[in-house]
């Protein structure tokens, strides 16, 4: 009896102690003066996307400059231009940038091309309480890993949430849609409704190229499809067999769904990308938008949004009977292989992505990417939408957008053909058939395994 009691206490301690240790370690403030080197007179250059979070970086960076004496310069570009600039710097073996902030689908490309350092060694050499790597959201940790190498610190996790006009939904007695059928009904309800003049049901990413290409990859899972034969949630190796399935019935259904939803979108819906759909929702003229969570702070900011106190986020809908797979994406912070000051680059990376600085980043408008941030009482009371993010994170699939080196071209190719189908130039079947053939050629050239 005594032995059993002792075993129970032992088991209890075995579970609770590590949790307590992590919690204590997280709470303990890092002595940054001792942890960071003196980099007086040096300049650190960071390249990243010009997303709304740039201002958050600019708010926080002076603290690092004060601690180390180094100057931090951020160069930010549009989505395509960021990729273009980063790859060109890599092909030229240029050390112009020390820290490279990469989108999740580019992880494989940058590792295979040898443009970034493996951060595993850096993390191992640093005190665990400084890095707290396991505190990063699990699905995003998977994203930053490519064949066992850590390509970047997973600090900027984005999830797509369904943002809806809570005030109007309440008024109409509606609840956030959980299936595409409900979603369509609600979009139709608000479009052309005399009670809501000038209101539209939905704003979507329809712009040709990466925007609508990415949208296709965001919806395919939620219609029960997959882009490649062995790429699906739970797959042991998503790229073991990359036979493209872009023209599968589900792949075609995604295009038809986008086409159907055009009637509920604002005028010029075909030219909308990430910013335009967010602006449309923030202007108060759209009832629903599926947007990356990095834009949620814009919706909440009364200076930039007319619906700051009138909206709420929900988990995205899926086809009836399917569990939703909320798209996950976002940015990892890597170190350039060609940087001449990798010590400074790592000091910045570990500092910026640490628990306490991450909290400051989130408070300044950055996306929560650590469990400690998602569960922090101060943050949650300020940003109640973190609960939806946490729910979405638990259901997300790391490879919802491909991460192989060809992913940019694959996504863009899908985007060009989806756009041709949306304009009616090609039927959905023709468009996806052509995209499939082109992607098959591309993958064949890359030497991938395809069973069909």
């Amino acid at each position, binding site marked *: 009896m005594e032995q059993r009691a002792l075993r129970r206490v032992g088991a209890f301690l075995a579970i609770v102690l590590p949790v307590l240790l992590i919690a204590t370690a997280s709470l303990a403030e890092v002595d940054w003066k001792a942890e960071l080197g003196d980099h007086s007179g040096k300049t650190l250059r960071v390249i990243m996307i010009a997303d709304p979070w740039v201002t958050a970086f600019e708010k926080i960076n002076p603290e690092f400059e004060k601690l180390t004496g180094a100057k931090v310069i951020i160069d930010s570009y549009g989505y395509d231009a960021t990729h273009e600039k980063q790859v060109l710097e890599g092909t030229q073996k240029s050390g112009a940038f020390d820290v490279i902030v990469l989108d999740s689908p580019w992880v494989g*490309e940058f590792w295979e091309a040898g443009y970034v350092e493996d951060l595993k060694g850096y993390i191992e050499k640093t005190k665990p309480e400084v890095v707290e790597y396991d505190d990063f959201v699990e699905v995003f940790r998977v994203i930053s890993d490519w064949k066992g190498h850590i390509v970047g610190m997973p600090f900027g996790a984005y999830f797509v949430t369904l943002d809806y006009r809570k005030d109007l939904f309440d008024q109409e007695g509606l609840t956030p849609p959980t299936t595409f059928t409900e979603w369509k009904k609600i979009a139709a309800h608000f479009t052309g409704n005399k009670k809501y003049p000038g209101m539209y049901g939905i704003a979507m990413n329809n712009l*040709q190229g990466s925007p609508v290409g990415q949208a296709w990859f965001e919806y395919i899972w939620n219609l029960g499809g997959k882009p490649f034969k062995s790429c699906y949630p739970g797959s042991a190796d998503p790229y073991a067999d990359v036979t493209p399935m872009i023209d599968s019935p589900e792949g075609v259904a995604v295009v038809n769904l986008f086409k159907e939803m055009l009637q509920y979108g*604002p005028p010029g819906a075909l*030219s909308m990308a990430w910013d335009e759909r967010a*602006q449309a929702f923030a202007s108060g003229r759209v009832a629903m938008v599926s947007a990356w969570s990095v834009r949620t702070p814009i919706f909440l900011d009364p200076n930039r949004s007319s619906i700051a106190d009138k909206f709420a986020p929900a988990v995205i809908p899926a086809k009836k009977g399917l569990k939703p797979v909320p798209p996950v994406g976002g940015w990892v912070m890597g170190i350039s292989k060609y940087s001449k000051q990798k010590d400074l680059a790592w000091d910045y990376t570990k500092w910026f992505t640490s628990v306490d600085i991450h909290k400051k980043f989130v408070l300044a408008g950055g996306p929560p990417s650590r469990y400690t941030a998602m569960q922090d009482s101060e943050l949650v009371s300020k940003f109640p939408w973190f609960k939806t993010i946490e729910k979405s994170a638990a259901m997300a699939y790391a490879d919802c957008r491909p991460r192989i080196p060809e992913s940019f071209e694959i996504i863009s190719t899908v985007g060009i053909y989806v*756009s041709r189908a949306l304009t009616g130039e090609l039927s959905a079947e023709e468009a996806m058939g052509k995209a499939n053939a082109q992607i098959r050629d591309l993958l064949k050239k890359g030497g991938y395994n395809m069973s069909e």
Partner: protein
Amino acid sequence: MVRLWLNHRPFSIQERLDVQATSRQKLFFIAPAIVYLLAFSVFPLIYSLTVSLTDLNIARPHTGSFIGAGNYIRLFTPGSLFLKALYNTFFITFIAIPAEIILGYFIARLFYTARDVKGISVLRTVYIIPIMITPLIFGLTWSYILNPLLGIMNHILMLLHLSPQPWFGDPKTAIYSIIGVDIWQWTPFVVMLILAGLLNISQDLFEAAEVDGASWYHKVFHIEVPLIKRVIGIALIIRLMDVFRMFDLIYASTKGGPGGSTEVVSFFAYRESFNYYNTGIGSSASLIALVLIIFLSMLFVRFSRE
């Protein structure tokens, strides 16, 4: 000349040395220009031609194998996006450039007629402001102005009780929106050239025509147009090259969409070269554009000479 040469006494050795020295001196002076041309024009052209015959992708190792005309065959495959880009480029060329020339002539004529009016030089300066704006900036600015939901253009249309337009957001209107913006930006340039041509015409010709009882259309078609034909030819060639290089506006507004309706050759070459890093295909597309520009420019030169 030949006779002079034959009658000339044979050159002395010293004279021959002097001639050779002069040739060497000439060569010495033009050498930098030759080196510059070889390095920055001839070499890139030959290199680009070589690359266009390979499957080079600068972001992937083990590419760059010789594939002959493979890239060109792919570009000219029926239904390819490149053919659409080529069609759109010609469409913009044949709508926008004549519109700019015709509009440019009329506006230049207005400025010409009002050349003695006080303050006209200020108006002329203001009028050419669009040319001075960075293309990417005006592309972004116009995409805000023509934003179907939040842009000022639709707001104005609605104030005038006209129906709002989707502008860049519909395949039927997108290409015309691009043409409209191009005309807005580049007509002032044509105006400048034609105005310079008009100001160079001697007043005596007009006075003589008036004495002979010439009507306005006689003056236009028998004096003005023939005398500014070369200027129009230059405007045509420059604008043709500009349209074939059109990139910033498409990049900032439509990204070639919707459905490839505003895809142009330069943007296609950019996407292949700098988004996908398919340098082989990008080079092939650029070379085709170059050949077309040279061919059309020669046609326009011939037109302006006749």
